[in-house]
């Protein structure tokens, strides 16, 4: 079932949590709502689930008006960050809950409930824990049970609120992959909320980046990472070096890519750390910088440099680092491979690959 939200506005007192947000999620798609805390992503998810009221706008399920349908009638599977398992019920009873509360006419027989619950527990590979209580499970196990519970009522939409936020890195990675597989098998629309960009980029078909109650950008993980639509997205997804209003010096052209700008104060240039090359010898347009710190992190080597008072971060491959043999205090020159310029915070980005690139 597809989900559509149209022009949703939600206020808490004078705080605007969502400001005229519209979004469409077709069946079969796994969408990530990504943003910093307080950006309204959880509120949007709760509005879709019917757990939160909205001030203006519409929620449509499969093209049908669902704005005022009660949460219990929306047929939405909801997974909470802190699992929200019924702590006084066994794992089996937790998963069976959605079936047991069905109206008598629709309620499956005890044997059918048993089969359904056990098959779901097998699906999440925890059938051996059926008689345990939530308090006896690890976090990852609890979240898998919570998912099985949500799936028991065969929801048409699966909503997950920071589902892996409370888990450690190893478990998270495993559950992410597992969620992706599960989603592909179910053929439903799924939305998950996260503040972890890596998680969003890795799992989702489409990423919706939110900030301060509105959507900054929607697109495939690759789109939002390689072609951020706003300065916020640039900064939120991955590391970036920001150059404010550079009018003079070697990178002056950054300011006026087409030579038409008069150098407004608000314009900024963004360069990702891996899009900068370090040179040992001076070259035209290259920026002089001093190496402050070199640190190898996994497959990359992170170099921190200063140009005048600015700090610039550069990521090199290990091979490149071996060639350069950088040490703190070295005088080097920097050349960007790609620069994105925003004339102002709201302006269209201008991507610009300098012609001097090697």
């Amino acid at each position, binding site marked *: 079932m597809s989900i559509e939200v149209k022009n949703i506005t939600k206020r808490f007192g004078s705080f605007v949590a969502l400001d005229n947000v519209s979004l469409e999620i077709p069946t079969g798609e796994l969408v990530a709502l990504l943003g910093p805390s307080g950006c309204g992503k959880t509120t949007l998810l709760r509005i879709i689930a019917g757990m939160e009221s909205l001030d203006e706008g519409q929620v449509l399920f499969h093209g049908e008006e669902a704005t005022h349908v009660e949460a*219990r*009638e929306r047929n939405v599977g*909801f997974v909470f960050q802190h699992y929200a398992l019924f702590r006084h019920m066994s794992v089996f009873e937790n998963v069976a809950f959605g079936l047991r509360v069905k109206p008598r006419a629709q309620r499956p027989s005890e044997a059918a409930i048993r089969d359904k619950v056990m098959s779901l527990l097998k699906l999440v590979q925890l059938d051996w824990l059926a008689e345990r209580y939530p*308090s006896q499970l690890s976090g990852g196990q609890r979240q898998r049970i919570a998912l099985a*519970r949500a799936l028991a009522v065969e929801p048409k939409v699966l909503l997950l609120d920071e589902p892996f936020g409370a888990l450690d890195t190893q478990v998270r990675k495993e559950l992410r992959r597992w969620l992706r597989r599960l989603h592909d098998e179910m053929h439903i629309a799924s939305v998950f909320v996260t503040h972890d960009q890596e998680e969003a980029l890795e799992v989702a078909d489409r990423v919706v980046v939110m900030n301060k109650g509105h959507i900054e950008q929607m697109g495939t993980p690759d789109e939002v990472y390689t072609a951020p639509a706003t300065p916020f997205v640039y900064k939120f997804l991955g590391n970036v070096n920001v150059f404010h209003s550079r009018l003079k010096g070697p990178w002056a052209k950054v300011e006026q890519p087409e030579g038409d700008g008069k150098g407004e104060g608000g314009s900024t240039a963004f360069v990702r750390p891996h899009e900068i090359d370090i040179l040992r010898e001076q070259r035209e347009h290259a920026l002089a910088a001093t190496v402050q710190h070199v640190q190898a992190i996994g497959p990359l080597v992170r170099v921190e440099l200063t140009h005048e008072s600015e700090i610039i971060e550069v990521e090199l491959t290990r091979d490149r680092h071996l060639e350069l043999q950088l040490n703190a205090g070295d005088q080097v020159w920097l050349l960007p491979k790609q620069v994105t310029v925003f004339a102002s915070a709201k302006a269209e980005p201008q991507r610009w690959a300098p012609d001097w690139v090697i």
Partner: protein
Amino acid sequence: MKVRRAAAETPAVRWTLTAIGVGFLIFFLGLPLIAVFVEAFRSGWAPYWEALQEKDTLHAVGLTVLVAVVVLPFNIAFGVAAAWAIAKFEFWGKSLLTTLIDLPFAVSPVVAGLLFILIFGANGWMGPLLQSHDIKIIFALPGMIIATLFITFPYIARELIPLMQAQGREEEEAAVSLGATGFQMFWRVTLPNIKWGLLYGVILANARAMGEFGAVSVVSGHIRGETNTLPLHVEILYNEYNSVGAFAAASVLALLALVTLIAKTIVEWRMAKETEMLNAALPTEKTAS
């Protein structure tokens, strides 16, 4: 040289503090309890048993139980509703309601009794109306029930509010998203989660309902064999120099208190276990990001 932790007291200080604590307990709690039973059995078993068989005493026991039995269901309903509203919803006037729930703790029971006389008494606000319909509240059972309700109101709500706040709303939201109706949610999720806290509150409220003297004394009118609860009856017997009768009746109340204490301890123990489960149910893993 003996090494002592910086924060540790000397044995002398520890012993003194313990002695003061134990001494206080024996003198103010233990001795009176023993005295009640010693006085009750001063003339032996037979007079004690006879005193308990006395018609008015039996009636007082019955009335005390009746008041408690009527009051507790109301208290449970009000207490759960108020705690639920305060713990799980945001609404205008919430802090006022929270304060009002504590009012019976703050007001002297005698004053509370007088308040009800002012409202329902013959010369009170509603007196003429009640009289014209021949309804008797003051100096009758309804007045005693109302006064006891007022006095015992905070116990259950007070017990449940922090518990429900700690549990949050997520489990209930999960129940609703799984298709549960409001009633199913309450019955299958909310109630099982608060049952020990609720029982604890009921035990405290019950103890207070049976033991209440001041407020009930004011509204009861002390009609012997009619509106005398056990605590009031004890006073009357004592004032009549019927020491065995008074202490025999008091011993029933004391026994009741002991039963309450035992029940309370068992429930507390169960609650501690539940809290352990609650804490264990909270996420233990933390993310690095």
